[in-house]
């Protein structure tokens, strides 16, 4: 299995062919369609990460030392970016997620979509993904 770093490099390569913003967005729209939808059971206010611009729902499950994320958004480009975040961080151990340094966002020019001022829920989602990892890490150590 590829490392988090390798997957990020892979994504950067995929985006390298697009020099036009519209192409980049079209690709994100495509990715948003591939995102396994979150179980509607989790599409409630308990799982919502509220951004000013768009809503994001996130669920995490922990089995056999591995965290699996599922997520959704009411905005499509946001959903496309979520698909990338899940591809990078899902199916990993808590330690891998905690240690992950995400450089692909900058590299593919989506930095502004994760800036605190953009408040579209993505930054908060990323934080929440890490928090889940920290929580399960602590639990598994304690247990």
């Amino acid at each position: 299995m590829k490392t988090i770093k390798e997957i990020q490099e892979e994504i950067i390569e995929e985006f390298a062919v697009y020099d036009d913003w519209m192409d980049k967005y079209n690709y994100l729209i495509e990715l948003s369609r591939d995102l396994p939808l979150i179980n509607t059971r989790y599409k409630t206010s308990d799982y919502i990460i509220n951004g000013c611009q768009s809503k994001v729902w996130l669920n995490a499950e922990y089995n056999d030392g591995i965290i699996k994320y599922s997520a959704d958004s009411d905005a499509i480009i946001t959903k496309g970016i979520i698909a990338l975040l899940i591809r990078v961080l899902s199916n990993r151990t808590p330690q891998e997620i905690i240690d992950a340094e995400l450089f692909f966002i900058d590299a593919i020019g989506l930095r502004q979509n994760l800036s605190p001022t953009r408040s579209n829920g993505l930054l908060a989602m990323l934080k929440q993904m890490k928090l889940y990892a920290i929580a399960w890490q602590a639990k598994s150590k304690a247990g």
Partner: protein
Amino acid sequence: MSYDINKVRNDFPILSQKVYNKPLIYLDNGATTQKPAKVIEKITEFHSVKNSSIHRGIHFLSEHATEEYEKARQKVQQFIGAKNTHEIIFTSGTTGSINTVAFSFGERYIQQGDELIISTMEHHANIVPWQMLCDRKGAVLKIIPITDDGDLIFEEYEKLINEKTKLISVTHISNVLGTLNPIEKIIETAHKHNVPVLIDAAQSVQHVPIDVVKLDCDFLVFSGHKAYGPTGIGVLYGKEKWLDALPPYQGGGDMVENVTFEKTTYQPLPLKFEAGTTNYIGAIGLAAALDYLTETGLSDIARYEHELLDYTTKSLLETGYVKIYGNSKNKSSIVSFLIDNIHPSDTGMVIDKLGVAVRTGTHCAQPLMHRFGIDGTVRASIAMYNTREEIDMLCAAVKKVKEMFG
């Protein structure tokens, strides 16, 4: 004389720039307007050769700075037709002005069980300060409902006024719907019950001529940065009788006459409400902006912008898949819309990359979004320098969005 749009555009240096290699189409004027060269030059000149603290020094620079600051106050007075110069208070903006009234009026007049009236279409700046006041005093906030077209329901407004009503605060033009509210009628009705009215003119002072004496409003507030002036400066107009009666909002230097540890006496108006070193350069820049509006002719600007608004509405509707929020017969400069059921954040992100600057989201008016059952809109807001070609580009961008998101 016809409106010389080319000259106007040339007066705004920022407009000639490109973003993402495309000509900038700035349609986010409801958030803030760009500045004409005259304003920029005035501010630079002041910083370069005239800067000095006002009302304090007796030296050459200070006296001249004070003079210019007070001249700026006169310009504002003339611009909105106030009777007295001392009825013009400089603040940090609309938000600062409303908070001043909410505090000072609240301290003097509001008691438990009293009522205040605002409308469904208010900006958070004209909601939250009143909620805070209500929390402090145990007062109650009443809300004027609106129609699906975005008009205030006048009969409901009349029904809300009673002997407990102490103040009414409504926006002149909605920053989301563009509705131009019938404030003359609102004020007249309130005054029949001896209730004072505050007008939030943040979205109107730059678009329609205002005469506070004719309107007979008790307070009127606006921001410099939305009226082609600098940011960080705003105006609170209040009738002398109110401003005299109200206690100051903030304490500090400049607003006092005599200070001892036992007792402090305050300056008369307007300084009573201008504690500390004010944003005097902002005030002087704002005066330059108002001069610019007057020279260009506010009535001509209003006519030009209105035509452009009609053109925008018509062009967007012609696409067949745009829904406009705010369809009052009386509108100014603002069009809020959604493209089918495409999320406004998706729309905003794509059209940004096409060089079109609009605002997406709730526009600091969440209760209004709840009223329409939506999470947000895309808002194009027009200024004196926008053109039909730019609206065509907006519509082309809207078409592109529709293609991409289906």
